[in-house]
């Protein structure tokens, strides 16, 4: 009885976690390069339940009632690296990657990878992200852009007024979902345990941004599902409680 109560409560807790992530994904629907958080649910441990040893029937197998689950918990969140659609902005320092790969940027805590190509030229002429992190070139050094008209080739080679001005670093990971983790403090940036080894980077497009890979229709349907599952779990808790209460009151009358 009590086991069922906690199983239902665990479903409510999992519902809140899922609602959390859906709200977060929705809030970032207009964040370029954003990769949505996915959540998967895992069963708790199963426990074998048996009846007390009966007097007449022999053999343990006959006494096993089954393996009821103890509830549900959320597994470690995963990252959905599906590519977002490109949106034209016309800004010369907005870049998008069409296909595989990540821009490499330098934070005070080390190098990070991102698909967010909102870059700027800072006061010293260096190419930085919208949050001021240095954008790196293929050799891992900051990119210095003199004033002038910036152009980029599909491979990420930058030119200013026709003069070569460096090569954007594009790190390709064969399986980003396995090789990359989120930076715990800085949104939209990813850390890698090892240097990227993949080949065939995507095409760098200037004047475009990659939109978040959040699909509003999908989020809304998921939210309805989460809401209903939560209501069902809440009802289960109430039913369990009612049964328990009835058992207590009935037995006390005897």
């Amino acid at each position: 009885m009590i086991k069922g109560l906690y199983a239902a409560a665990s479903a409510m807790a999992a519902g809140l976690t899922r609602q959390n992530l859906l709200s977060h994904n929705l809030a970032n629907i207009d964040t370029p390069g954003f990769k949505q958080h996915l959540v998967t649910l895992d069963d708790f441990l199963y426990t074998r339940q048996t009846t007390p040893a009966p007097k007449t029937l022999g053999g343990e197998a006959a006494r096993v009632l089954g393996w009821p689950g103890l509830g549900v918990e959320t597994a470690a969140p995963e990252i959905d690296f599906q590519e977002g659609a490109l949106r034209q902005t016309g800004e010369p320092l907005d870049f998008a990657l069409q296909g595989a790969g990540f821009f490499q940027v330098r934070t005070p805590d080390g190098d990070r990878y991102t698909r967010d190509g909102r870059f700027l030229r800072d006061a010293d002429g260096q190419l930085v992200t919208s949050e001021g992190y240095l954008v790196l070139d293929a050799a891992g050094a900051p990119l210095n852009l003199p004033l002038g008209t910036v152009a980029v080739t599909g491979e990420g080679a930058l030119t200013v007024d026709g003069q070569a001005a460096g090569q954007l670093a594009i790190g390709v990971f064969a399986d980003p979902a396995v090789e990359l983790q989120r930076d715990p403090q800085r949104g939209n940036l990813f850390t890698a345990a090892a240097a990227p080894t993949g080949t065939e980077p995507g095409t760098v497009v200037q004047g475009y941004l990659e939109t978040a890979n959040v699909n509003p229709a999908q989020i809304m349907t998921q939210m309805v599902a989460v809401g209903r599952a939560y209501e069902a779990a809440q009802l289960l808790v109430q039913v369990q409680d009612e049964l328990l209460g009835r058992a207590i009151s009935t037995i006390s009358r005897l």
Partner: protein
Amino acid sequence: MSQNVSQLLGLARSGMLARLQDLDVASANLANVNTTGFKSARANFQEMLDDAAVSGVRPAATQMLLKPGSLRTTSNPLDLAVEGEGFFAVQLPDGRTAYTRDGTFSRDSNNQIVTATGLRLVWQGQLPANLEDVHVNPDGTVMAQQAGVWSQVGQIPLTRFNNPTGLAGFGQNMWLATDASGAAQNGTATAAGYGTIHGNTLESANVNLAEEMTHLVALQRAYSLSVRSFQQSDHMFALAIQMRRG
């Protein structure tokens, strides 16, 4: 991952607040669709994480968009437009220098070149008193006609910045230099990177009406979605609270 009321409602709230801030920026862009030399802005949002806990979204910066506006011809020879990166420098009443792309200049009673609000343009030279006609060349040299004779009376410089998006808005379509923008670099028009000055011309706002309206529709929908997620989070809490009744 633990949840509490303020965190879960805060996530949806951050989404709603972000869309409202975006609406402010979009409104300013739309309001200035006919403002000469206006540069539209873009609100940049960034995902917010706190020790790997999802925390919604936050505004990272409002970025000034530097796309050139279209040029239109006027009848005033002192209507100037810059084609390229440069800004005009004007003197503020308190002595500071502000920068603008709005080249609606005219001659005041003291033979000064002033903006529409009466602020003096910073340039080397002086308009003669007995001016019959004036003309500004692409390199900024100012030609004045006196008694039927043209002569050069000065030159209008241009200013550029490493990071124009880092300029601080002063209002009235003017900007001030900041640490983020880098120091003002003064130079001559037509020199590489400074741009060309066109007389009898004004630069229209670089607001793309269709783009702004599309953005407005999208952000309105995003706002509704955030409201919906706020309602659902609230409903889930209400269910948890109501669980024990008897």
